[in-house]
């Protein structure tokens, strides 16, 4: 198992996992108002929403293998990501 680890660590999905973990820390920081957008909580909240949906996109692309999927499936998935992100952010900011 150990001998195979270097092969696994070189996978694109491993890099995506590292980015996802980093994004989790950043959104946690924004959510607790310790991040760089302290002066306006609405910026922080919008950042939290956008980061969450960027993470969803990364999960789809690199974990669910949408990079190699038919374009129609990719469009459905990414269309969901963009639409739901816009609706959630819109409701948060303007409802």
């Amino acid at each position, binding site marked *: 198992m150990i001998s195979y680890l270097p092969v696994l660590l070189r996978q694109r999905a491993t890099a995506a996992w590292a980015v996802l973990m980093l994004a989790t820390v950043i959104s946690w920081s924004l959510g607790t108002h310790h991040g760089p957008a302290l002066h306006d909580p609405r910026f922080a909240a919008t950042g939290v929403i956008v980061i969450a949906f960027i993470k969803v996109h990364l999960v789809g692309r690199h974990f669910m293998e949408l990079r190699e999927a038919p374009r129609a499936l990719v469009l*459905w998935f990414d269309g969901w990501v963009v639409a739901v992100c816009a609706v959630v952010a819109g409701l948060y900011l303007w409802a």
Partner: protein
Amino acid sequence: MSELTVSAATPPAVQPAPTQRRRIPGETGIWVFVLGDMVMFAAFFGIYVQARSQHTELFNASQQKLLIAFGAVNTCLLLTGSLFVVWGVHAIRNGAARFAPKLFAAAFVCASLFGLDKVIEYTEKLSVGITPVTNPFFTYFFMFTGIHALHLIIGMCVLARMRRIALQPELDASDMAAIESGATYWHLVDLLWVVLFALLYLLN
């Protein structure tokens, strides 16, 4: 695809369709389910944010009673579990199928820890008198995290089945499709939690 056989004992194994042609990962049916579930959760997210905008003070005050660390640790556990699943699928496709059962078992451990974290969190809330009927925030909190927990339990059964399939000495095309479909379902569990964590724990 139907002639594909992957051997755990004799690497390098056959990879599925080593071409640049685009393919659906797993069975088509699992994607119908995944996209349907995503639409259902999209409605949940919209309803929650709409309700939050109408009771902002109440939701903010209630959210202060959540420990963000519970949600953050669970996010890390699910992301790591998903990575193990990706690695397991990769191992099967690349002549290292003998490692896949261990990787799927590692993902199962991550899922179990997520469940344990959730039980601790629920217990802590209930012990101080916070229940699903305390106020609208906690109604949504328990309802959405409860529905997600149901997905998690199903996902743990799926991971156990994936491990059992991966333990076979030889995998045919239907085994591979079952593993890919299981992996896709597991990533759905991860994906939904990523948004729930942001909305329930962080958005204020």
